[in-house]
């Protein structure tokens, strides 16, 4: 249970860091504000199920940011400072270190999502809304999964690279992609229309490519399985279960690749 010792220490170190507290507070605030304005700006129905579809766009922007910020310095920071030499002088494997750090850094991310959801849920239900418990829990679960994906991506970057500068650049690059990606489909449709081939829509290959990205996958899960007012396309690759499988792959494959490299390098 070596990873548990590391996870415990890492959770404490992460949760007490000022930047993490700030971002976690921001997430809770966004959830609360979203829930507060939801009955005002949305025609309804004002249920916790439909609320998921209402805030998923906001969370799809903020949760990746939090995950990447929490994760990107996890390993490389200590590798450069020399604190990693202390941990690896103790009987911990490199696998324990990477896995323990991921778990430890996830703890505050998950805690912030749960806290935000509790507050938002209460605000939606009271005084005029309606509680739809199962879809709401599914929504919280999907959002936590999104948090896991981006924290794991951040930790993967941190495990793969050898300098903090590279980790910063890579994490920033990933985040820019996240922000740009969700706008790509609309941009491509607009471009197609302007060159005079409307109606045909985006080519399938491009659509598949666009669907691979985790935030859009999260949006499809919310629209397809949680929000009764939402809908996704009929194509198999737009199915919410495919989207969930994609999230699982994003949470595991990059980190596994990064670990394989990390396991074989000379430190620092």
């Amino acid at each position: 249970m070596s990873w548990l010792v590391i996870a415990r220490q890492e959770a404490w170190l992460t949760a007490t860091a000022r930047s993490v507290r700030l971002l976690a507070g921001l997430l809770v605030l966004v959830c609360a504000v979203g829930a507060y304005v939801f009955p005002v700006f949305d025609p309804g129905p004002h249920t916790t199920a439909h609320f998921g579809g209402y805030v998923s766009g906001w969370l799809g922007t903020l949760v990746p940011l939090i995950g990447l910020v929490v994760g990107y310095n996890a390993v490389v920071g200590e590798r450069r400072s020399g604190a990693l030499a202390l941990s690896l002088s103790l009987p911990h494997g490199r696998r324990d270190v990477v896995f323990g750090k991921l778990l430890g850094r996830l703890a505050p991310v998950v805690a912030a999502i749960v806290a935000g959801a509790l507050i938002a849920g209460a605000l939606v239900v009271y005084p005029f809304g309606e509680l739809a418990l199962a879809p709401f829990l599914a929504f919280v679960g999907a959002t936590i999964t999104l948090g896991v994906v981006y924290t794991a991506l951040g930790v993967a970057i941190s495990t793969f690279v050898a300098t903090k500068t590279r980790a910063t650049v890579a994490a920033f690059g990933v985040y820019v992609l996240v922000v740009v990606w969700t706008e790509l489909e609309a941009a491509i449709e607009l471009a197609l229309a302007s060159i005079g081939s409307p109606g045909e829509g985006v080519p399938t290959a491009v659509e598949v490519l666009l669907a691979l990205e985790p935030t859009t996958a999260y949006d499809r899960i919310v629209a397809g399985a949680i929000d009764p007012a939402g809908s996704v396309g009929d194509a198999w690759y737009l199915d919410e279960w495919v989207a969930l499988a994609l999230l699982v792959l994003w949470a595991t494959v990059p980190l596994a690749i990064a670990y394989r490299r990390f396991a074989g390098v000379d430190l620092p």
Partner: protein
Amino acid sequence: MAAIEATELSKRYGTLIALDRVDLTVEEGEIFGFLGPNGAGKSTFINALLDFVKPTHGSVSVFGQDCQADSVRAREHLGVLPEGYSVYDRLTGRQHLEYAIRSKGADEDPVDVLERVGIREAGDRKASEYSKGMAQRLVLGMALVGEPDLLLLDEPTTGLDPNGAAEIREILREENERGATIFFSSHILEQVQAVCDRVAILQDGSVVAVDTIQGLREALGGGTKLVVTVDRTEPSILESIRGLEGVETAWLDEDGETVEITCRNDAKMDVLVAFHDAGVDVVNFRTEEASLEDMFVEYTGRR
């Protein structure tokens, strides 16, 4: 079973050879000094034991456990003070020790360890406020947790004043009496001389000597230096002294009246007799032990 067993351990970085086929055996219960100038490869050797560095050839094991294939199990035997570590800035000294205790599954009281390494009063302060010497003591404390079979210490007295260094040596002796094997590197000769049963001298990635201090001394011209003040001398007299059995070297100092001779202990009288026979008056003489410094220079060609 050997505490450390290295077989042809080699590490190459591009064209730089940091370790060149190092064979080394450290027996259980020894205090073993790993000596060499900076850059000789001492830390690379220790880092290979910790699996921080992957050897390009050869292998090294700790109590029979391969340090690469079975790294974690090998490290379960170790208490380590590594090279180039940093403490966790945001943890207190006590929290560092709690981390080490949990990691090793030990059940010591952190306060006892803090007391032992002499930083008890600083235990509840953040380690970022520690001086280099205090951090060194803290990490040594982490190494002591769980009564390890082998203490592996990379330059343990760096950042400590002479008193601190003496305290550390005392702790090492206590640990050795408990039954622990001690392996530590140093580029400072006195540190090694004061506590070690055996030493290895590393030079440019190769082990150039492994012996007891006494053995090294004997290997170096019998271990005694004779300093003789004479009223006059001639090259022929020095030649005849160099020809005596048991004499290694003899040379005239710059002042022109002091002759230094390194020789076996039992050859000292013969030297004095030879001066007398040549009609030279010996005004004064004294003997010195050949120092480790002399040996070190002899072996590594550096000063």
